[in-house]
């Protein structure tokens, strides 16, 4: 039986009410009752299910919760890896060595750090992989070089995102491409065009901060530069680099083999890295390290479970469709603006989800605007969502793993505000002038 079309306005109204109830519940639980974001999103999803008359279909909550299962595994193992490196003293040792070499050359240091931070992201397309490997190494180094902890954290977060965007692997572009049957071919130059200026600009911004921030700096615990108490505590030789090198080699090998080496997955690579950390540094307790790592990962994993439920209910009830249709319900010239707003905002739930849900329809609405450059720019806008609250996954991971608490996350986000806005503007400009840029490349 087809739905009566006279009820169209009513249906849109129903979706609007559902959405308002979901957002209202989230705010009530998160802001007023101070519940963790994971429980607030799950609660909001449950209310959405009830308001739309679907409370009998509770299974949608469980199905949605599995939306980011693979990402959750990556985060869990990345955090165990970080906990192992920290407990084994490897993190401190490497930071100390880099600081000693490059500590007094801020620009060179920040450019080298940017490349290091970006590398895992470029190889895996995952900002988590970047932030939780080389990103965590350079954080104390930058603080040691006189950059304020909040700015150093912002630098790592931004670098992780730029690495995720940079070629050769950009997963958001692949997701957008699979929605319109566009092969992942010819993206290297446009992605480099987007990422390179951003990387250089963020490096200069961080280095400039070093001089300004030097007087009166108060480094916090996790991001403090390491000063060894005595030489006895130091780890000697090159074995300190083995875990991180092994990780990067595995990522490279899988990428270069073009499918002939089976991909064991990023979580597995992190697990191998964590095991190597045990034999390459100070003695550590396996169980305690795993518990500590999972404990650090827990809030972020929980948010992803809640966000999965939230998106599932949004889709089921038509709220997702209402948001996408509304974003497109404007003249073509304004779609560029809508893209610059909607992709990062939706990306705050998940950059991957934003690429699929918002990126694909926006690219379809912009066909003829040089699809390759357009998709590249859209992927950048979606990826920036990984930096944005309420979830702000990359800043959250950095502050969780540095053990500095939620205040550090807010300080980091405040520092990153202007660079984020500039990155959005840059992606917007590339999007807007995609045909001209396409000819240029």
């Amino acid at each position, binding site marked *: 039986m*087809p739905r009566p*079309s006279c009820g169209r306005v009513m249906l849109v109204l129903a*979706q609007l009410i559902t959405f308002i109830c979901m957002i209202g519940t989230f705010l009530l639980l998160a802001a007023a009752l101070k519940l963790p974001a994971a429980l607030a999103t799950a609660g909001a999803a449950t209310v959405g299910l009830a308001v739309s008359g679907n409370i009998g279909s509770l299974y949608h909550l469980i199905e949605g919760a599995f939306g980011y299962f693979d990402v959750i595994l990556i985060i869990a193992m990345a955090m165990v890896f970080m906990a192992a490196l920290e407990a084994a003293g490897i993190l401190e040792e490497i930071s100390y060595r880099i600081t000693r070499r490059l500590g007094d050359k801020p620009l060179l240091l920040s450019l080298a750090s940017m490349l290091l931070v970006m590398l895992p992201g470029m190889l895996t*397309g995952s900002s988590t992989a970047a932030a939780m490997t080389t990103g965590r190494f350079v954080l104390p180094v930058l603080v040691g070089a006189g950059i304020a902890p909040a700015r150093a954290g912002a630098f790592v977060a931004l670098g992780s995102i730029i690495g995720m965007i940079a070629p050769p692997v950009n997963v958001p572009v692949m997701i957008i491409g699979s929605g319109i049957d566009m092969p*992942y071919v010819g993206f290297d130059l446009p992605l480099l065009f987007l990422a390179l200026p951003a990387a250089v600009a963020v490096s200069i911004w961080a280095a400039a901060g070093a001089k300004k921030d030097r007087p009166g700096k108060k480094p916090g615990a996790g991001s403090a530069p390491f000063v060894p108490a005595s030489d006895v505590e130091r780890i000697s030789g090159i074995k300190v680099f083995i875990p991180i090198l092994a990780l990067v080699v595995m990522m490279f090998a899988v990428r270069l083999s073009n499918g002939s080496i089976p*991909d064991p*997955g990023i979580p597995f690579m992190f697990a191998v890295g964590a095991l190597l950390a045990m034999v390459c540094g100070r003695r550590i307790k396996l169980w305690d390290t795993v518990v500590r790592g999972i404990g650090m990962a827990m809030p972020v994993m929980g948010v992803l479970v809640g966000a999965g439920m939230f998106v599932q209910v949004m889709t089921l*009830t038509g709220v997702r*469709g209402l948001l996408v249709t509304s974003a497109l319900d404007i003249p073509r010239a304004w779609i560029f603006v809508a893209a610059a707003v909607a992709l990062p905002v939706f990306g705050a739930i998940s950059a991957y989800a934003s690429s699929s849900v918002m990126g694909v329809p926006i690219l379809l609405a912009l066909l003829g605007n040089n699809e390759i450059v357009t998709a590249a720019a859209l992927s950048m806008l979606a990826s920036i969502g990984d930096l944005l609250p309420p979830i702000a996954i990359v800043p959250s991971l950095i502050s969780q793993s540095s053990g500095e608490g939620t205040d550090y996350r807010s300080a980091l986000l405040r520092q990153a505000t202007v660079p984020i806005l500039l990155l959005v503007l840059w992606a917007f400009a590339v999007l807007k002038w995609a045909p001209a840029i396409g000819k240029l490349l």
Partner: protein
Amino acid sequence: MGDRGVRGAIVIAIALVLTVLSAMKFAPPGPEELDVYPSSSISRVAKLSEYNTALEGTAGDTLVLIYEGAEPGGAMLVVGGAHPDEPAGTVAALILAENVVLTQGKLIVIPYANASGFTHNLPQEGHPSDYTLQTPSGDRTIKYGSRLTNPVHQWPDPTVYVERVSHQKLAGTEARNLNRAYPGVEKGSLTERVAYAITQLIIDEGIDVSIDLHESSPEYPVNNAIVAHERAFDVAAISTLDLEMEGVQINIEPSPPTLRGLSHREWGDNTDTLALLLESPNPAQGRLRGVTDAELVVGGVDPMYIRASERGRLYVPYTDEGTPLAMRAGRHLASVQAIAAAYSMMAPHRAIDICGLPSYCDVLENGAGAYLNPNQ
């Protein structure tokens, strides 16, 4: 064990109970839920694993229905359910399988090509797990699945899926997309094994014309279309003339040579068959859709799409009537018949004569269920 230990044990116990309860709901159903009641023209019900023994006993094995006419002729393959969230493909294949009267040639129908994909739904899509059509003698409930193989059957995904022919890079989840896995790998992943079996079937059975039944979202440019491999262009062109006389407007799209792993490309490149893929507009898989439920799957009416159509955002006509499943399955059926007729005209010694099927107008008027058997 201290206080914390006790509390932890209780939390873990509760989590375990909840996990077991939800696992019972989500446990993949058995193959008996993918039912089909072949017409009396059937000469043999085979299994896909006959064409790749590496599929035996796996969740990827599926029914292959073989019909042979009294008079020898050509051979045609019709594949439905390669993407289990594109119901018109499955329903058209089922109507074909349950009504066909074959007088000349050979017809092979695979209604549930990615059987594993029918055992789950894609998280965050909010899709129903099934939908029900009214047949003259009772209800017929059909599974609505996911476009990807169930991760319970194939996991983990690679970070990046490198397609095997020209090493094209795709998002990792596409490793579970049957229509990116052709020509397939004999002992590869489950999805690759299924793809290999279908390619092998085309070769072993000497299939002249192969048709892959799909759907796409109304905002997708390739829609209401026949995507044709370059060798199949003529047969597609001739069939569209027939279709237009029946009131079915359809576009011909060339299979892009750069897009690898798809049926219309790899079947055509790796076998002698003429490879074609059909698309019809399914609002339930679109990104603009509103409320997502079985009613949207069958009725095909969505206020969001009506709005998008008024704003000129769609590539297919979309009015208050929407695009009901009957219309979409009817298009596929009419196209299969028109393609068989066109091929029979072009190669009379390899003719395939398909009878017994309802016309496009019949399906549109009476609904798809009118031509199906109820669940038994």
